[in-house]
């Protein structure tokens, strides 16, 4: 079994998409920062405040779950084809899949013919079926996978769903108890306390970090995962879409798109905003005039029009140069990356202006003057004195922008200038479902799935950014 696994994985051809590389770079940057911050009290103190906030940490767990999904979905590869080439060389599928696709196995494969409602056993559209007696009738045919194991869906479905949810929930709960137990045991060992004492402290919320709230949140997700895992192989929990694909699968696959847009956009724009903002505020003079001109000009173009123009132009470019990309995934990925860049260009100006203002204020601060009196060079004043003192603004902006960007993706995809139509995204899901609004009875489940997944992520991001802002914004602690 293990050997099979190893053999399977070694047969794959890894694919590194541009956004994958950037995502992993981002993870590396965050990890490096965490290591760096450990030694710096002034960095640790505000983070401690974030860690102590209950709402913020519950939100952090939620975000972590989404991030884990997105990371799994960022390891891409292509499977080998059965038939080898003439000289024994291996060909690979055109389809690029990820670790997440492997994990979601049945969700990806179990494709129905067309729409079906959540937990349905029959299609949503009537079809002309040839009956065994040779006559034909227009009926709702049984689904190929959803509830296919039931003999009499009308009789068995409710009980089966209940049974499977409960057993799944039970399994999730068991996992939770075991994992939390290991976690608390680890904490107890580090603190050198008996297990019970630590457990009591964690459960009563006496720890500095609100572990109990975080554990309960993690528990909620584990139970949910357990239920989904035990149901997903037998039902389409969120139904299927027009081409019969599982909506839950689409919603989960969309997580990566949202997170990539939410994080890479700021990552892409950050170096420019920092460099230009600091230079404009510190050097003043013609540098300031030029940078101000630059961002006023960019800012004066209505954001959505700039994005629309740029994306349209990119699309024309891609369409007229089809040979540039090996796979569809690579093409869609390029469009995603470009969307991040152009979104970054439009949101760059706000941060740059903030940084410029703050730098101008700080330029007059006495510690900067003292450094000038020592003949410290401009480059060092900017990097050592100004940069560390504006980083909190950067952080607040980054977390604050995240949720706005996730929401923006949906709107842009709706307008038609978002991610590639072939890419899974909540915006594309909504866009697809919108066309079915007029249908009676309505096809609502794609909307519901997109709504739930988006709402949870954006709400968590908003709560987390509140916690970060409370901790880092000097204005909030003055009172």
């Amino acid at each position, binding site marked *: 079994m293990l050997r099979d696994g190893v053999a399977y994985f070694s047969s794959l051809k890894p694919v590194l998409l541009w956004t994958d590389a950037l995502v992993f770079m981002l993870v590396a940057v965050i990890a490096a920062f965490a290591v760096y911050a450990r030694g*710096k*009290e*002034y960095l640790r103190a505000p983070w401690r*405040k974030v860690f102590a906030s209950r709402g913020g940490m519950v939100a952090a767990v939620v975000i972590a779950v989404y991030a884990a999904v997105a990371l799994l979905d960022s390891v891409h590869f292509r499977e080998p084809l059965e038939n080898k080439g003439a000289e024994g060389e291996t060909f690979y599928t055109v389809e690029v899949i990820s670790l997440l696709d492997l994990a979601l196995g049945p969700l990806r494969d179990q494709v129905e013919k067309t729409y079906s409602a959540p937990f349905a056993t029959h299609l949503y559209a009537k079809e002309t079926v040839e009956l065994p007696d040779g006559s034909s009738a227009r009926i709702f045919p049984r689904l190929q996978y959803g509830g296919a194991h039931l003999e009499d869906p009308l009789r068995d479905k409710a009980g089966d769903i209940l049974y499977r949810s409960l057993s799944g929930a039970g399994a999730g709960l068991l996992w939770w108890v075991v994992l939390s137990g290991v976690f608390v045991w680890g904490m107890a060992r580090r603190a050198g306390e008996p297990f019970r004492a630590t457990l009591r402290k964690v459960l009563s919320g006496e720890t500095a970090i609100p572990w109990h709230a975080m554990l309960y949140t993690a528990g909620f997700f584990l139970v949910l995962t357990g239920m989904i895992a035990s149901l997903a192989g037998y039902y389409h929990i969120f139904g299927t879409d027009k081409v019969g694909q599982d909506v839950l699968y689409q919603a989960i696959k969309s997580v990566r798109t949202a997170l990539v847009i939410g994080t890479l956009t700021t990552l892409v724009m950050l170096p420019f905003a920092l460099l230009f903002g600091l230079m404009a505020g510190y050097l003043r003079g013609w540098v300031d005039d030029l940078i101000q001109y630059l961002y006023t000009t960019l800012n004066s173009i209505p954001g959505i029009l700039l994005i629309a123009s740029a994306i349209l132009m990119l699309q024309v470019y891609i369409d007229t140069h089809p040979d540039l990309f090996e796979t569809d995934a690579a093409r869609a990925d390029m469009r995603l990356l470009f969307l991040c860049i152009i979104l970054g260009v439009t949101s760059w100006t706000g941060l740059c202006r903030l940084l410029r203002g703050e730098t101008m204020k700080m330029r007059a*601060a*006495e*510690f900067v*003057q*003292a*450094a*000038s*009196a*020592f*003949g*410290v*060079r401009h480059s*060092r004043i900017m990097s*050592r*004195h100004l940069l*560390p*003192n504006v980083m909190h603004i950067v952080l607040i902006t980054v977390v604050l922008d995240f949720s706005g960007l996730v929401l923006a993706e949906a709107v842009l995809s709706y307008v038609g200038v978002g991610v590639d139509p072939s890419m899974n995204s909540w915006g594309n899901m909504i866009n697809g479902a919108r066309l079915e609004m007029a249908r009676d009875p309505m096809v609502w489940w794609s909307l519901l799935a997109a709504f739930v997944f988006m709402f949870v992520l954006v709400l968590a991001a908003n709560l987390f950014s509140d916690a970060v802002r409370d901790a880092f914004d000097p204005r909030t*602690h003055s*009172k």
Partner: protein
Amino acid sequence: MSEILLSVRGLSTHFLTQGGVVRAVDDVSFDIRRGETFALLGESGCGKSMTSLSIMRLVPEPAGRIVAGEIHLDGQNLMDLPEAGMRRIRGNRIAMIFQEPMTSLNPVLTIGEQIAETVRQHRRLDGAAARGVVLDLLDAVGIPDPRQRYGEYPHQLSGGMKQRVMIAIALAGEPDLLIADEPTTALDVTIQAQVLALLGDLQKQTGMAVLLITHDLGVVAGMADSVAVMYAGQIIERAGKEAFFRDPRHPYSRKLFDSLPDVGKRGHQLAVIHGAVPSLAREFKGCRFAERCDEAWDLCHEQAPRWYDQEGGRQVRCHLLDPTLAARRPASHAAPRDGTGQAQPCREHGQAPLLEVENIKVHFPIRKGLLKRTVGHVYAVDGVNLSIARGRTVALVGESGCGKTTIGKAILQLIRPSAGSVRFEGDELTRLRGEALRRRRSDFQIIFQDPFSSMNPRMMIDEIIQEGMVALGIEKDAAARRSRVEELLDHVGLPREARHRYPHEFSGGQRQRICIARTLAVRPKLIVCDEPTSALDISVQAQILNLLKQLQNELGLSYLFITHNLSVVGYLADEVAVMYLGRVVEYGTVQEVLEQPRHPYTQALLSAIPVIDQTTRREVIRLEGDLPSPSSPPSGCHFHTRCPHAMPVCSQRYPQSTALSDTHRAHCFLYGDEE
């Protein structure tokens, strides 16, 4: 009606902060009699402002809360009143003015409207009647042309005028008690004199009582009838003013007097109170002052002293005043820990000037229009001559906005002068550029006013002190630099472990020591000290002044000491330059300028300083009006608009320098005009 107007009993106000509960006010009791001025004296953070807000029940909730105590106004306990009832007290029976007149007025309402609001609220007057009252009030607080001012906004008034408006608001309800929370701390000394005089006059007219909250012993001496000294959330001494100034009893009160710098203490070390005010977030067991007290013994650390009644109704909270306890005090504690009064003769150094500043000008252009044409200038510094000899201290004195800080920065070439010359050891600094200037920077350094903003909060002390050495290549070797940092920390009296900590972990005084160490690291010959002690409490100020003096004696440093505090000048400086609106109006040795001031401005400045010893008090020369704008200085002598001796010629041309002695010069037509 009883004689007591306000009686505070067992007042405790707590604050919930990140660091735990701060007991800002802890069991405070005092009485204020009708018509008297009661001064609450204390250093920053001792809880005196919070006491006043508690009386008004304006403690910012929910973080702050009055947890215990009674406040009786004419026998009525204010703590029992509902919020609506308390509103009838505020502004009506008890009024309050605050420290910052700049921010305490609503920027978008006219001043007339802001005063009228109180009139309407408490006197039930409306329309024309209210307007009449407001105009009378504006007149009463000495605001010229009330009709015109009625419709103006706060930003159109100067700081002193704004504080007058605040006083008018306070008077609008005809209060029985006026709480004045550091009413003149944000104002210049000549304006302070105006406002204090106004408060005194108004009190005489209306017979209201005043609760004066201040850190300034001079203000207390000039204004108060009785005094309460606050320390770390508690009152530790209560006395009539005369008795208190004749003979302060609590060791803390005594030390406050001793640590004040003045001319009489020249050549001596100032007495200091060690350490800093303790954090109020912790629990106290013994006397709160014990840690910093020279006379404390074991008992002081273990048991909090009770009140000891003294003659004349005065009370002191100190074990020393209990004869039985004091008798048991171990003898070894009798000697003070520091060398108060140790005479250290000032070393005389060579008279060759280290720094010569000639006719230096700093004009900031005011730019307007499409092409940023220069339409005018702010004449921040307008032709100043100075020279500083090795090992000497020249003080630059003046009110805010007179350009004294700009001169300091212009000498260091942090601001490039528009004209004039700055020669340092014969080298013309204004002509040095780039690398050549950078190499000279180690010779002249600067210490700033605010020790909180003069160090990068993101850097460790080690890096802060090393920065100059690295930038100027003083010590190339890292190990040598490290040992030099330790040496410097020793020198300024900080533990070596301080190297690995961040600025926020230190108190104001300690930070200022670090700043001094940082400048010393590059072995400067001249240090520009820009108000280095004005952000510090009196007890800490003395520590820094002593250190500066000691360093000068040991290292032969020269100081350009920029300050508005004339008593510091008297203690530290050799020569004084008095500035008014970008120009030096009088220059001479400390004795000459402080004892025989000749220029009317210097005379007014000196007379305006509140002094402790009321017998030596000069007749206050009250200056009318405010400092004119440096972008359009008055014609002729800049001071003629406010000068009591102004003559026709004064408005026509600027007086040339008149030599009054070899070392004493003044720019004034009263003493002739040598051309």
